[in-house]
């Protein structure tokens, strides 16, 4: 049986710093992915859905703040804990990053022991994060996050995301796949069986098209034939 390990995205333009961070994290049993700039980080984030992001601020051509703004724009709050690791130590820089919702601001030079404490705290915090609703309140929450369709059939598709959807809950998916079928606003429901872990904290969610018509079925079949 494989164990799903936590994954951290390191964003820094200095390969020597990335190398030492990778070593520290791997020694903690954490998987690591890296990016040397903001655009590469956004791509990596969408591809891997890491549990934690560690980023520098002073990078070129875009600063780490651009990444922070992007991450926050996904759902209005930071989708995962973010640790800023920067040589900047002035109050203005720290406040600016904190206002964007980061979890920690760590100044360089790096103190490995303190850094490990912060990693553990934030990885664990992410693991036990839960929404608790008071009795009688509506038990629902709206979230928006990236995902990818990995398989499709005439009645639905499999969507890999970093959350496990409740069975039979209504879902909205924006995807070129649905655009091609001209069913962007079609009612979608998660499957009757709870999704299994896919990899690295991602889940394989079954999504069903509710009440598929013959026409949609035909369009789906035709589209799938073009994939082969």
């Amino acid at each position, binding site marked *: 049986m494989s164990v799903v390990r936590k994954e951290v995205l390191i964003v820094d333009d*200095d390969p*020597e*710093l990335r*190398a*030492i961070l990778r*070593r*520290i994290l791997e*020694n903690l049993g954490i998987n690591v992915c890296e990016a040397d700039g903001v655009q590469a980080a956004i791509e990596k984030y969408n591809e891997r859905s890491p549990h934690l992001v560690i980023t520098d601020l*002073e990078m070129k051509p875009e600063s780490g703040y651009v990444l922070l703004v992007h991450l926050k724009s996904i759902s209005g709050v930071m989708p995962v804990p973010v640790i800023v690791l920067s*040589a900047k130590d002035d109050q203005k820089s720290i406040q600016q990053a904190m206002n964007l919702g980061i979890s920690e601001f760590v100044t*360089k*030079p*790096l*103190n*490995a022991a303190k850094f490990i404490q912060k990693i553990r705290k934030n990885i664990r915090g992410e693991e036990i994060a839960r929404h608790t609703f008071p009795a009688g309140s509506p038990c629902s929450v709206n979230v928006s996050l990236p995902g990818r369709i990995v398989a499709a059939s005439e009645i639905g598709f499999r969507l890999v995301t970093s959350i496990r959807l409740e069975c039979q809950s209504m879902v909205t998916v924006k995807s070129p796949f649905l655009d091609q079928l001209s069913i962007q606003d079609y009612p979608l429901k998660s499957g009757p069986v709870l999704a299994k872990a896919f990899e690295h904290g991602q889940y394989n969610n079954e999504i069903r098209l509710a009440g598929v018509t013959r026409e949609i079925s035909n369009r789906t079949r035709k589209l799938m034939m073009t994939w082969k």
Partner: protein
Amino acid sequence: MSQNKKRIIEVSEDILDLVPAYLEGRAKDIITLTSAIQSNDFATIGGIGHKLKGVAASYGFPDLSTIGIALEMAAENRKMDIISIQVKLMKAYLEEIEVVPEKAA
């Protein structure tokens, strides 16, 4: 006359294998810094200082980070005399250190 007395730097075994490549990079920094001093290239000097400040201590070389801080500040203030002294200190430091595995506590 040189005493050839090595300064022992203990580095965690977890990162010991990363250290030779890191120090090789710093030897190249000395060449780059020497050339930057000749051409009054404060941007390059400041950039190297900034990186030393941020990374060297993580590899077990806090003294190099301190030199990095001084280099970055001197480049910002265009103080070439201070830069020259710091580069000499850095060169001497790199020549005199011997890296050994950290002893278990």
